[in-house]
Each structure stands twice: as C-alpha cells, then as structure tokens.
C-alpha cells in the first residue's frame, strides 16, 4: 500500500537556524499519524510547509504519489489539505460564521447568502457537538472556543488531509473529548490525519503511527505506536530518561497567606472565596469557560473588580492594577501567550527581563545589560529554550519555546509571594515540563503560594497539594491531594 501523503527529504532553514534537515516519512489514508518532539524540533515548520505557508529549501511533498509544490496557502487548500495551526489564525472582529467560511463564502454574484452561511455553520457545529453562537464575534469567545472555531473551519474545507498542530493545548476536557471523537470519525471516513501533541496519553489513544523529531531530524517512525513503550518515546524525544515527570515532593505547609473573599467581576453571579497557605501548590481545574482565568485576572487586578477583597498576609491588595499587585508580590503568568504574553518584536532576553529588571537597575533608571544577559542565558539554559541566541526576536521561536520564555519572565521574579500560572505548560514538551514542575516546587518550598490553573487533568493531579474545581464561575469543590482522583475532580467539574 502506498502512502497518501509522503514527505521526501524535506529541509528548511531560517537565517541561522536549521528547522528541518532532510525529513522523510509516509502517512497513510485512514490513519492518524502522530508527530512528537521537543519544542523547536521542527514539527510546526513541517506543517507550515504542508499548508503552503513556507516553501521547503529542499526535498518534496507527494500527495497520492503526485509531487506537489505549493506557492500559497490557497494552493494547499486546493490540493485538499487543511491545517489547524498552532498559533490560532482567526479574525477577532468577525463572527464565528465569517471566520469559519472565510475564503469560501456561499455567494451569488459576490453577494453573500447570509442565511445559507449561517445554516451551514450551525449544522456543522452541531454535528461536531460544539455549542456556539454562529453570530458571536471571536473576540468575545474564550481561547478554547476560538480553537473549536479553528477546528470547525478546517473540517469544513472538505480536505482529504487534515493536520492538527497541538489542538488540545488550549482545550479543556469537554472540548478535547469532542475533538477526539471528531478525529476518530475522520479517520474512519478515510482521511489522512497528522496530529501533533505533547500529551502522550492522547497520542497513545488516538494515533496509529508516529514519527519522532529531534533538532529538525527524524529520529524514527513507528508504524504501530501502541507497541512502543512510553519510556522509549520520551528517550527518543528528549535524549534522556525521565521517570516521574511530576516529581512531587510533599513539603510542610505554612500559615494562610492569601485570602480571597467574595471576589466578583463582571460575569460572575456570585463571588469566589478561597485561601492558599504558604508553600502550598493549589491546582485549579474546570471545563472551558468555568471562569478560572477570569478569577485569576480579577485577583491580579487585570480586570475590574466589582466586589470582594484580596488579602495577602492580612494586608489588602489594591484592586484593578497589575503593577500594584506585582508590587504586593502577586504575579500572574497569563494563559494566552500570543495576546497577553509575548512582545513579538522584542528579543528573548527582553521578554524575560521586562518585569523583573526593576530589581536590578542602575541609578533607578538605567539597565544593567550584563545582569540581564546573564539572567536570560540562565533561563535559556535551564528551561532549554531553543534559540540561536538571547537576541533572537521571540516571534521566530517555536510555540513551546515562546511559552518557556514567558514562564521564565515570571520565574525570574525575586520578590514573589503568590505565583499564579494560568495554563503554564501549554504546548511544552515533556522534558521541559519536568523542569517547570521542579521549579514550581522550588518556589513553593520557599514559602510562596503557587496557583496553577490547568486544563490538563493529570498535571493538576500530579503537582497540586490541593485541587479547587470551578464550574459555572463558582468554586464547586475543594479536594485534598489524597482525595483528588480523576473521577472525583470531573464529577465536580461537570455535576449540576
């Protein structure tokens, strides 16, 4: 049987960076082919070549044994290829319908048939099992909902080849399940699917075959993924053994430090109450739109507080001002790295130092270049951020590496008392996750309160001392580490 999609010695260089070096592998119709590899291994670059966004420097691409050369995304779409990119590509001011049908509106003489468009989208959305208002603007949706729109957009292209680049990184449990069903359905109807993820569990449950990348090279293709042990995969990916990636170490908890009382923002019907002890790691779990991110932004002062108070060590934290929160020792690493995190045109070093540099300025005003450089290099090294140097603009880094840089920005803070990480390991490879969990523990060990918001259930269970579950903008339950099982948490997240 010949493969439906073949990569033949595909290479790609960016100025000074080798992203892909002669990669070859085949993907077959009616299968899901997983791509694995560390951050910056070249996975997304490969999909961008597949989607016609980049042209390869060398090698070629065969679809159904026919060599293809794409000069634009439109060419790839015409060849029956749909790609769901890692960095979501939507138009914030347009509606769900308009985003999904962009480039292919049903129209007569250029006039859009709005009703038909709306019907088409509504039908497909409900077929997939997503409940979304087709007239809502994307800017009003949560990231997870935007991600579902992207998926729907790709599916509606009627492509034979569909590639997913870390689709679950911004989905929570329910949507992920919907997505998995969708992927299996597409497989059963004979589509060729490429699937990138850093979550081994989902790769095992979805993929038939898989290919592992490292530093732009293909390490190995496993025709039957199920037969490959987890350890082998991890070793091939990161080049070393990792036994327990969470590395949880119990530690003595301190006194109550952070107290949140009746905190309420625009969308909350009631206020939220909770508290965190010193040295404690609290995990927040919930389904999409459960209101976790909103709560954290309120706590941090990024959104308008309507009622309630936040006390840190008994002292009230001023509302509505992130700088004041930072002053008080509360830090928030936001969930949306593209919109709220990266300074796209600034260097890696700049992105790391932007906030914490205020501690080591010269004469209160001038920068200390070498100190900042040393700090940047330290984190590049410790988080294994793949970049040619600290002066590279962050937008040229792979998604996972950008996430690491943003994390480094917050981990570099030396005066933190409360560290809030919203979806911190989104898109990060196993090796680096392990490192991040270790740092989180270190931070906690020094008496900080750590709050980790995550939609990855194993992660929450793996690192938290206590799990708070949110549902419908309220905290629906609190579970100690010993009580927090998958079922218990999900019951709280879903129950009426």
């Amino acid at each position, binding site marked *: 049987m010949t493969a439906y999609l073949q990569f033949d010695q595909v290479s790609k260089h960016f100025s000074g960076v080798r992203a892909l070096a002669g990669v070859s592998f085949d993907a077959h119709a009616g299968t899901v082919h997983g791509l694995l590899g560390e951050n910056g291994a070249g996975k997304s670059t490969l999909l961008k070549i597949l989607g016609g966004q980049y042209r390869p420097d060398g090698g070629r691409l065969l679809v159904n044994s026919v060599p293809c050369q794409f000069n634009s*995304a439109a060419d790839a779409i015409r060849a029956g290829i749909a790609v769901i990119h890692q960095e979501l590509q939507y138009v914030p001011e347009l509606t769900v319908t308009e985003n999904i049908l962009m*480039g292919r*509106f049903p129209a007569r003489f250029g006039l859009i048939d709005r009703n038909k468009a709306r019907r088409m989208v509504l039908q497909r959305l409900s077929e997939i099992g997503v409940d979304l208002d087709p007239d809502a603007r994307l800017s009003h949706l949560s990231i997870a909902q935007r991600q579902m729109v992207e998926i729907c957009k790709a599916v509606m292209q009627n492509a034979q080849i569909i590639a997913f680049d870390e689709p679950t990184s911004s989905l929570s449990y329910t949507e992920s399940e919907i997505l998995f069903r969708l992927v299996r359905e597409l497989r059963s109807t004979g589509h060729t699917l490429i699937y990138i993820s850093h979550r081994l569990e989902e790769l095992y449950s979805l993929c038939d075959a898989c290919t592992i990348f490292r530093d732009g090279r293909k390490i190995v293709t496993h025709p039957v993924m199920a037969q490959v042990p987890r350890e082998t995969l991890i070793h091939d990916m990161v080049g070393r053994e990792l036994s327990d990636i969470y590395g949880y170490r119990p530690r003595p908890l301190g006194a109550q430090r952070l107290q949140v009382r009746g905190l309420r923002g625009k969308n909350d019907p009631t206020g939220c109450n909770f508290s965190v002890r010193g040295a404690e790691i609290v995990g927040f779990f919930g389904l999409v739109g459960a209101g976790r991110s909103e709560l954290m932004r309120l706590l941090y002062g990024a959104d308008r507080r309507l009622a309630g108070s936040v006390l840190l060590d008994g002292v009230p934290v001023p509302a509505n001002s992130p700088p004041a929160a930072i002053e008080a020792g509360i830090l928030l690493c936001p969930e949306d790295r593209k919109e709220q995190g990266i300074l796209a045109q600034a260097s890696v070093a700049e992105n790391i130092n932007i906030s914490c540099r205020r501690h080591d300025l010269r004469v209160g005003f001038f920068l200390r270049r070498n100190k900042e450089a040393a700090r940047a290099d330290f984190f590049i090294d410790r988080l294994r951020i793949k970049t040619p140097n600290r002066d590279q603009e962050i937008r040229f880094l792979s998604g996972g590496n950008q996430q690491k840089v943003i994390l480094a920005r917050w981990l570099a803070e030396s005066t933190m008392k409360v560290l809030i990480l919203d979806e911190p390991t989104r898109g990060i490879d196993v090796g680096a996750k392990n490192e991040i969990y270790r740092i989180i523990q270190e931070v906690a060990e020094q008496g900080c309160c750590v709050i980790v918001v995550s939609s990855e259930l194993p992660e929450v269970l793996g690192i938290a001392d206590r799990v708070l579950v949110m549902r419908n903008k309220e905290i629906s339950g609190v579970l100690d580490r010993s009580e927090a099982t998958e079922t218990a948490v999900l019951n709280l997240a879903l129950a*009426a």
Partner: protein
Amino acid sequence: MLKQFQTLAVQTMNSSHSSDPNPEHDMRVHSSEQPFVPADKQRRWLVEYSMPIGYAVLFILLSFTVENFFSTTNIIGLMLSVAQIGMVACTMMLCLASRDFDLSVGSTIAFAGVLGAIILEQTHSVALTVIGGLLAGALIGAGNGVLIAYLRVNALIATLATMLMVRGLAFIVSHGQAVGIANEDFISFGDTRLLGLPLPILVTAACFVVFGVLLNHTVFGRNTLAIGGNPEAARLAGVKVERLRVWIFLLQGLITAMAGLILASRITSGQPNAAQGFELDVISACVLGGVSLQGGKARIFGVLIGVLIMGTLENVMNLMDVDAFYQYLMRGLILLIAVLLDQLKTTAHRI
C-alpha cells in the same frame, strides 16, 4: 457525514461522568449560562445606535437654537459641502478597514479635476473627460495598491509619495494655473437638480448605498475586514490578500477621481492646489464614524454620521459667524467631544 457526533458527544459525557441524567445539560457550557438579560439587550441597542441617536439629538437641538439652520437651502448646502468628503470616505473606509491608509486622495482630486479640465479644453467631449479623469484616478489607486500590497512599502510612505507626485503632476500639466471650464454640459452636472436635490448629493448617497452593500453583503467586503483584522489568517484561509488590496486602492482612486471631476464641475475649473488637507478630513470622518485605524472594523452608517458631523460643525459655525481663529478652537473641541462621547459608550460596553 458527521451527524452522529452530537449523540456521540452526549454519550461520552454520560459515560465518563455519569452523575448527570440530563445529557444536553453538560454540553452547553456557554450560552445557557450567560443569558442576555433584556436590560442588557436594550443597552446594547443603545450602544449600537448611540452615534445616529446622538447626531439626531444634536440636529434637533441645532434646528431650534441656530437661526436659519433648519431650512431646505441650508440642509442642501450642508450636504453639498460634504459631498466630496462623503464619496471618498466610502472607499477610505474600506482602505482603513483593511489596515491601510491613503494620504493621496487630496492630490488625486486636484489632478483628476485639472486633467479633466484640460481634456475638456482640448476635445470638448464630456465623455472623454470623464473617462480620462476616472482612468487616471484608477491608475493612481492601482499604483498605490501595487506598491503597498506587492512591493510591501509602508502605506503611509507610499501614499505620501504618491500624494507629492500626483500634486506635482497636477501643477506640471496645468503649469500651476487653474484650468477654466467653459462647457455648459459639464458645468451643469454640478448644479442640476433631481427630485429637488443637486446631483452631487445624489451621487454621494448612491456611494453610501453601494459601498454599504459591498461592505456588509459581499465576499469582497467581508474579506476586506478579514485582511484588516488578521492578514495572516485571511491568507491562510485562501483569501488573495494582495489582489484584494490592489482592488481596494483602485476603487479608492476611481471614486476619488469622480469626486475630483464633480468638484471641477461645481467650481467650473480644475484647480491644481485644490483639496489640500482633504485626506485628513476624510480619515477623520471615518475614524469619527468608528472605523478603526488598526483595521478590521468598519460601519458604513458610522461613516455617514462622521461625515455629517464634520459638515454640520462647519456649517453651524459659519451660520453663527464664529470668528475664524475661534473656529479652529471649536472644531478641535467638538471633534474631541464627539469621540469622547463615543468613547464613553465603548468603555461602558467593555466593562
């Protein structure tokens, strides 16, 4: 093909977290939980239409307080005074919506007028005049488009350059002198009336209708907003971004040339230094009407209101005989008040 998903999804929910007997409940995490209360709906409506309502209130107020304001002559005069700005604002809206910028419109108005007058002088043919003028405008626009879309020159600089070059051309072809127009047919276009309204006003009205439909009901319009909102996303969705941008500029050039010809007919001459500073007026009207300079946002109705506000302002100040120096002050102040009011609304909307 995927029809069974809904049910499948429901099954998953039930099987994996069985406690809920109501299958539909789980899936609808959003809308059901964020219902719009009627009060909210009313407020949204108010917010949506605050600009036209605001303008209507202003209009009524002025009718009662400013002598001679509410009279046919004056209203027609008012509309005539913004006819050119109105036409060009329609295409400028598209241009801004696609995250571009066009400073060359003032020069194009002048050039089209001068060129038209010269052609008319030479050939005495109105048809050739119109064709020549429009063609020149379309070419200028397309040139801008190619520079910006294909050669990726910054729109500000590119259109600043064409602004200078086209103005230069207008001076060169006319030797710096206004070119008189004697042809009655051509001149009469500027003051002929249909249904009591001068033709230029009707043309402007037609522009608003056509470009309103174009923006809201055609692929062209939606794609324009898409490339303004996120060009990369539009490209990845298969939109021919470059071609579209050239078309937008071409249209802009065409309509601007038309405005230039109409102006020439109204003032019975082609003036090489006409319409200086026109570009800022047009862009201001658009921005006042809620078009975002960051692209991706446009409303034809807003632009209409923006244009009317600009015209009313000028008109009322002249009716009230405001001193020329204080007119500057007032214009600035009222511009500020207009956007501040508009701003209050969006802030209210956001929080």
